[in-house]
């Protein structure tokens, strides 16, 4: 293990120069920084005088020299003796160059570990022999499996502290292997080491551990495979920007997978427009009509279709998934909890969309793999299986098919709050969709398209009940609740109808009928435009309510009748507007319940007994019924 000399470089021109990225993870204080420092020392990858300089600094501060200090360059880290942020640093063996990513072990620094590990090709996971498998050993193993890092070697460190006991080593191996098998991860091998003493790091240790004849850590690093080229996979070219230079419209982006050639017909998802590649634009580079995975290029098209950032170009066959709903494994690092029903900003390649956390399907303790039941939120450092609904179609692939298109992040404020891995999505045949001429960018703006945009269907929630039964209160609370979960909603009640649209109507039976007829028509129009309309009128006659229902259903809108039921005595006792008093005194004629009939619903979807239920319970009852009805069809027929 020596650094490569100039002569050997030119002598071996085919040497692998692609840097392999290796992340070092493990429980805090299990010796990651020490191992990395030792690898640098043993492979002679340190600048002249670096060791001496740090030894001198340690003497000055009365500290024992540690190899970890070679990495922990920041003052704070030296003072606290822990790594606080991910560090990337290069070294090389005779075989190839490496980028080592040092990931901190402290639980609160998970984001740094993910930041480091997400880009790694391979991992070294450390477990201290004297402490054995700990919480972070398991959690980090789980995250490696989640991130799709399959090349893993486990270093069982601090063998010197357990008398180089083979038995102890075997016990750690057995325990951790059992854990890894549960998460479908298999370690390449387990290496017993003492990083501090440089045993089995780059040099074998036959004297101390004669029972181990396997590879050292650096031997193992050299066995890892370089990342595979993605040229053979289906084309994915997410549009980064569209530039206008020299009268040309250049579509800029990086080819994430596959190959793109001049003359190829590309389909741009999600709007499904197609055009042909006219040229591949590069500046000061050899002319070539082909661009492959990994290249940042620009292309021009023969037909000037509408293309913008976030669109993903593919070939017509093997197109990506396009959906507004998907399942994912998510790890959360945000400061606030993720809540079911809340809206978040989602980014996947260059796409940026609003989405809603629809449900938590499984919440897993990443260190014990136990399922946590009954939580409607995901807390910092949790890992969960979730269902997500986006406001507009998201272009994606399953992670196991095409990792770059199968992972997304959720934002918290301005920062990355968590990451997700998409699984289980179904691919549809774009040609079939095309032949049936049903792609949504070309037809009229239909209710289904509005629903897709809004994230829910429109509908009418018709509250009926006696004066004082709680319709107004319930309607406002319901409106607030629906609004808070991201729905578009509006209340129609006496206040905003009687004073305008129906100001020419009184309270005669004829006028009451006309009043409700107009309300029913307006509610239908608003529901058709995509709103969830809540109406709060006494609407005493069954036949009027039936007509309102028919009007809505004819318009293709959901109609939910809510019987806001409180006994007359209770209503009269509440009497918020002193109307009952006036009616009893004969000051109001034809007052429902006193001098005019109220026909209680026979087939209302929901009955809310406001004298029994709290307002919160009443709202919950309605929302619970409403939500499934108003979900947009995940694959709308348009």
């Amino acid at each position, binding site marked *: 293990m020596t*650094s*490569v*000399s*100039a002569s050997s*470089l030119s002598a071996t*021109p*085919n*040497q692998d*120069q*692609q*840097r392999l990225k290796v992340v070092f993870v493990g429980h805090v204080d299990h010796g990651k920084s020490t191992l990395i420092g030792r690898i640098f020392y043993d492979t002679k990858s340190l*600048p*002249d005088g670096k060791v001496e300089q740090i030894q001198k*600094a340690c003497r000055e501060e009365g500290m024992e020299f540690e190899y970890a200090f070679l*990495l922990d*360059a*920041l*003052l*704070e880290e030296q003072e606290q003796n822990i790594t*606080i*942020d*991910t*560090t*990337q*640093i*290069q070294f090389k063996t005779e075989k190839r160059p490496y*980028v080592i990513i040092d990931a901190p072990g402290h639980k609160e620094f998970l*984001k*740094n570990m*993910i*930041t480091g590990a*997400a*880009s790694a090709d391979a991992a070294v996971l450390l477990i201290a022999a004297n402490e054995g498998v700990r919480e972070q050993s398991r959690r980090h193993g789980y995250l490696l499996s989640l991130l799709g890092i399959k090349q893993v070697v486990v270093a069982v460190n601090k063998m010197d502290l357990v008398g180089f006991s083979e038995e102890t080593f075997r016990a750690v191996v057995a325990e951790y292997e059992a854990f890894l098998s549960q998460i479908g991860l298999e370690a390449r091998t387990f290496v017993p080491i003492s990083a501090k003493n440089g045993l089995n790091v780059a040099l074998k240790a036959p004297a101390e551990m004669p029972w181990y004849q396997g590879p050292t850590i650096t031997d193992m690093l050299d066995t890892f495979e370089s990342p595979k080229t993605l040229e053979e996979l289906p084309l994915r070219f997410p549009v*980064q*920007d569209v*530039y206008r*230079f*020299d009268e040309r419209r*250049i579509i*800029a982006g*990086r080819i994430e997978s596959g190959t793109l050639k001049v003359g190829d017909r590309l389909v741009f998802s999600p709007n499904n427009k197609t055009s042909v590649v006219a040229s591949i*634009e*590069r*500046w*000061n*580079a050899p002319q070539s009509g082909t661009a492959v995975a*990994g*290249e*940042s290029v*620009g292309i021009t098209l023969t037909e000037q279709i509408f293309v913008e*950032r976030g669109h993903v170009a593919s070939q017509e066959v093997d197109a990506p998934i396009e959906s507004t709903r998907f399942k994912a494994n998510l790890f959360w690092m945000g400061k606030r909890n993720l809540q079911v029903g809340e809206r978040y900003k989602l*980014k996947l390649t260059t796409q940026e969309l609003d989405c809603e956390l629809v449900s938590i399907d499984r919440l897993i303790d990443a260190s014990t793999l136990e399922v946590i039941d009954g939580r409607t939120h995901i807390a910092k450092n949790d890992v969960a299986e979730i269902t997500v609904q986006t406001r507009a179609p998201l272009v994606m692939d399953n992670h196991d098919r095409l990792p*770059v298109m199968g*992972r997304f*992040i959720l934002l918290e404020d*301005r*920062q*990355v*709050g968590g*990451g997700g891995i998409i699984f289980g999505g179904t691919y549809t045949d774009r040609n079939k969709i095309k032949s049936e001429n049903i792609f949504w960018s070309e037809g009229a703006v239909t209710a289904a398209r509005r629903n897709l945009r809004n994230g829910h269907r429109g509908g009418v929630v018709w509250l009926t009940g006696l004066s004082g039964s709680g319709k107004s209160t319930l309607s406002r609370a319901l409106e607030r609740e629906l609004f808070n979960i991201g729905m578009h909603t509006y209340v129609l009640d006496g206040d905003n109808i009687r004073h305008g649209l129906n100001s020419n109507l009184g309270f005669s039976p004829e006028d009451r009928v006309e009043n409700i007829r107009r309300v029913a028509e307006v509610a239908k129009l608003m529901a058709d435009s995509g709103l969830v309309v809540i109406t709060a009128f006494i609407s005493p006659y069954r036949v009027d309510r039936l007509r309102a229902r028919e009007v809505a259903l004819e318009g293709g809108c959901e109609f939910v009748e809510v019987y806001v039921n409180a006994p007359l005595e209770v209503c009269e006792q509440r009497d918020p507007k002193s109307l009952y008093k006036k009616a009893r005194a004969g000051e109001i004629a034809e007052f429902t319940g006193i001098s005019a009939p109220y026909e209680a619903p026979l087939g209302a979807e929901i009955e809310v007994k406001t004298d029994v239920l709290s307002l919160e319970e009443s709202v919950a009852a309605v929302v619970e019924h409403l939500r499934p009805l108003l979900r947009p069809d995940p694959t709308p027929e348009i």
Partner: protein
Amino acid sequence: MTPQPPSTVDPLSFSTHPAYAGLYPAPGADEPPAFFPAKISRADSEHLDALEAQSIFLIREAFHFFKNICMPWSMGKDSNVLIWLSKKAFCGHIPYPLLHIDTTYEFPEMIQYREWAVQHHALKLIVKINEDARAGRGDYAARGQIGYDTTDPVTVTHELKTVALQQVMAEHKWDALITGIRRDEDPTRAKERYFSPRTKDFEWDYKDQPPEFWNQFTTSCAPGEHVRVQALLDWSERDIWLYIQREGIPIPKMYFAREAQDGKRYRFRSLGCWPISGPVESDADSIDKIIDELAVTKTSERAGRAQDHHERNAMQKLRAKGFM
């Protein structure tokens, strides 16, 4: 052609300038202002494609998300690679201004190079000098002139570079700077993010950096704050040279060996203010030789930069306050 302003540089005066009083002699008065490397693509440089693609991706992301953007340009090798990558990203154009923080301690041939490069690359260049600090007026009236003859190098670097940057940013209100720092230059830079937020006071909160993975970044900031987009973070010093050679990128001549009066040959590995920049002994007079030299060297790139070594953790202190 628009008439060019008269050059402020007289090559005939180079040999008597104090910047060349040390080991590294002045260039000949008739030498061209830039070095044009012969284009050679070495067999061990295939990994440059991936580095180039990632840098272009980062530069385009910066340009998309930030509307008021600037690219600091020190004229050094990394800076010139940034110009090149910008032109690659935008098909030969550079859609943002460049900024040179002029400490007034530039080597005269670097000013000559600057004038040449502005013409050659058609740069929109803003030159900023902290005039008050140099003259000892305004906020500096009580402290007097700031310069290497009066003040320690860490303070000079802070005042003439970082404070100058703060002044010019207050004026132009840039929300992002595309920088050319690399992880391999310095341990504190090894911890950097691609998109690294800075507070109003330019502070870098390296203890609580935002997560960054899967090429998703911190792509917005509050008014007054800015984000440093570090497009060369993954590159090593050797990669920079391999790329300059592969692409034939014009660079200053001071990276190449000149014979000193002591009969030995010297070159600069890193260019800075002349009073605090030391050359290294080297025979490298071509990029090939520089690359071969780097493969065996064990001295650090910034070893010749006095301000880094003035005290322990000097670099960290400078960077936490806003130094690049």
